[in-house]
């Protein structure tokens, strides 16, 4: 995602549709566009569900409601806490990968880093038996989980920093390594051959009012701290600079290798912490599916929130909300999990897709000369927009206006924009 140069053309050769980057859109306008996207997506999904599973739109919406807020008071208490807890866990993983992402280090290894953290926490409980008092046990579990997460994250970081290896493939491989390592340990720990460890007797975090409350508050605290770290600390600034251009970073005296390794250490530590919380506060056990794909979903959360921790709260909530609501479709209409996944996919597609109309202006000329052609300077992906802009009317000027690139570190953006392409070219 780069090069969105304004299309230069002579007036006489103006193409039928052309797109320009939009710099300022009032918040209410961008909010309306997003809301409209969600509304259209829901409308489309309710049509789909009518066609595919025979649910009328009202039932479809009611099912979403049931899934997230329960069918009665007793059930709501449970599902609303579940909604908050699942949001917190997803948010925490998204927070963990965000520092690396802001550095344009594409760490897709959160799944493995969280899993290995969870495994380490379980291992501490499994091997320590009754040796330690609770508080010490928690401390060791936490340290082991964080350390394991760091190891899993720093190995690819070192390779990236020193040999410029591809971090995406490397972190992906580390996911598989973690999964098989867990499978190996489970075989070792269950002599009956079931590979099911079951719930551990010890290492359960205390309940403060509600069993999930401690976890939720911790994640909120981390959100705040990470926001401050990324936006108001020197290290956070360094991350942004390295992300925009490594050459610029070197030029102004930033030790890029150090920043990469340091940032991935932070990412890994947060992943490990998440693993610890999943074990100590929720599962008290580990399986190969303990993280259950949330390490990958977190990538979407982080991207959709444009790497802003505070926005991630909302995005994580949205995704968990959609999943929980859609999953209820499987229950109420006796269908498999594929349809709910489809619904979530469609809605997320619309939510992401609408960003186009926020970021870019679509111009449509009133009368098309036969020789019209779209300028080659337009960024990739823009060609898809043709259909979307059809309804935009024909006033010839901006049909949809949009805000800037929505990254809040505009200053950095502008400083290094010119060197960006050069710096990132490999």
């Amino acid at each position, binding site marked *: 995602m780069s090069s969105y140069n304004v299309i230069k053309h002579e007036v006489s050769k103006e193409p039928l549709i052309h797109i320009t980057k939009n710099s300022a859109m009032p918040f209410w306008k961008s909010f309306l566009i997003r809301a409209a996207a969600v509304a259209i997506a829901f409308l489309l999904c309710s049509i789909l569900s009518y066609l595919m599973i025979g649910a009328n739109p009202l039932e479809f919406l009611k099912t979403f409601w049931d899934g997230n807020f329960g069918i009665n008071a007793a059930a709501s208490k449970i599902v609303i806490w579940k909604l908050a807890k699942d949001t917190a866990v997803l948010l925490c993983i998204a927070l963990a990968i965000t520092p690396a992402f802001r550095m344009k280090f594409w760490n897709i290894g959160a799944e493995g880093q969280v899993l290995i953290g969870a495994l380490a926490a379980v291992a501490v409980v499994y091997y320590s038996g009754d040796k330690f008092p609770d508080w010490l046990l928690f401390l060791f579990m936490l340290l082991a989980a964080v350390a394991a997460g760091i190891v899993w994250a720093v190995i690819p970081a070192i390779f990236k920093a020193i040999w410029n290896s591809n971090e995406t493939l490397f972190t992906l491989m580390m996911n598989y390594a973690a999964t098989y390592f867990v499978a190996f340990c489970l075989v070792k720990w269950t002599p009956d*051959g079931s590979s099911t460890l*079951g719930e551990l007797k010890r290492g359960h975090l205390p309940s403060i009012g509600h069993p999930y409350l401690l976890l939720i508050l911790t994640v909120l605290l981390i959100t705040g701290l990470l926001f401050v770290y990324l936006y108001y600390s020197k290290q956070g600034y360094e991350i942004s600079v390295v992300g925009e251009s490594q050459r610029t970073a070197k030029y102004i005296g930033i030790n890029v290798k150090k920043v990469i390794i340091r940032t991935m250490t932070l990412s890994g530590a947060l992943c490990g912490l998440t693993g610890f919380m999943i074990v100590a506060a929720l599962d008290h056990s580990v399986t190969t599916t303990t993280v259950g794909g949330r390490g990958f979903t977190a990538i979407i959360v982080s991207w959709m929130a444009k790497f802003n921790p505070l926005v991630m709260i909302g995005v994580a909530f949205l995704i968990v909300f959609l999943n929980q609501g859609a999953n209820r479709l499987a229950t109420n209409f006796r269908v498999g999990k594929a349809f709910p996944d489809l619904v979530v996919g469609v809605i997320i597609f619309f939510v992401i897709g609408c960003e186009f109309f926020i970021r870019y202006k679509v111009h449509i000329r009133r009368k098309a000369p036969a020789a019209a052609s779209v300028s080659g300077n337009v960024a990739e992906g823009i060609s898809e927009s043709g259909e979307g802009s059809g309804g935009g009317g024909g006033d010839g000027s901006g049909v949809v206006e949009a805000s800037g690139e929505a990254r809040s570190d505009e200053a950095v953006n502008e400083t290094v924009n010119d060197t960006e392409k050069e710096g990132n070219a490999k």
Partner: protein
Amino acid sequence: MFKKILSLCLAILMVAGLCVGLSSCNSSKDSFKIGVILLHDESSTYDKNFINGINDAQKALGLKDSQVIIKKGIPEGNECYEAAAELVAEGCKIVFADSFGHEDYMIKAAKEFKDVQFCHATGTKAHTEGLDNYHNAFASIYEGRYLAGIAAGLKLKAMMEADSTIVPKIGYVGAFTYAEVISGYTSFYLGVKEIVPNVTMDVQFTGSWYDENEERNAALALINGGCVLISQHADSMGAPSVCEDKNVPNVSYNGSTLSSCPNTFIVSSRIDWAPYFEYICNQVINGKKIDTDWTGTIETASVRLTDVNDKAAAANTQATIDQYKAELIAGTRHVFDTNNFTVDGQKLTSYKADVDTDANYEGDTEVIKDGYFHESEYRSAPYFDLAIDGITRINVAF
């Protein structure tokens, strides 16, 4: 304009709320509800078998859809407890879970919700946990596998008669070296051995209950290793589809694979869970207790065989199966008769199996009496874990 839309939305919401409120008013007579927790969905043959079971039971009992709440894709962790708690909140009198790893979280829920019955398939802890409202269930599937083995034996015999160069070696793809799998492949092998006494069997484990690729590879390795007939105990289509590609006869599990494997599918055994679902619903509706450990049998129709595929099976297969089945029901034949197998060349007279799930993983209960191994009697889940002669385990890493 905006206000109008807002008020319209609110109105719709209120109407929707009213509908929800009205629809949840049931007459007390029909207030019975059962909740079913499944690890995956229909795409897994294992879970599909439970879905079929509950659907059949629902029909037989005349329950409405709203009285049977099915939750799919519930992992073996805290989510299982959450799902159970939600089902209780929705008014379920019974909560059922289908996967082994659900057990501890079901027990956790059972301890909290004393007036709801928790039933768990394949679990092992009910008889030691001492809870009034927590129950295990399984079926004597080893009898079904034994009969499927008879069908496989007949096929093998026919193949050997047609081609004298064929060495009677068969293959089996198993998930884990876990008693449920061991009991399964041993009973299958004993069935084949009943017809072809000099048969040997290789077992390849995959280390997963559902891994299509691994199951394909395992089946392929067995076929390349000289196995002329394959069976499996894992939940994907991996092994059966390889058999169809290679034209190797296959005995399936958990449901018919006839449609995908018309030329190689012989027969399939499965547990029919409908009788158990009917049983627990009836007990609760009538205010009676549910057995702590319930083992369905061929006699209760909990263990079933599909129709024999005449295209792949040997002649007279169905009649032979029926004859053996009658003997099993009459009790004149036992699958794990100690006259029919040896361990390290010795006939067994005594064996302590690990029936109680505890940290020791040691044998605790004498299971050989009256000349046979008493499987699924001291608890519903299988505990036959002997390595008998004639079966080679290719990999025991799992």
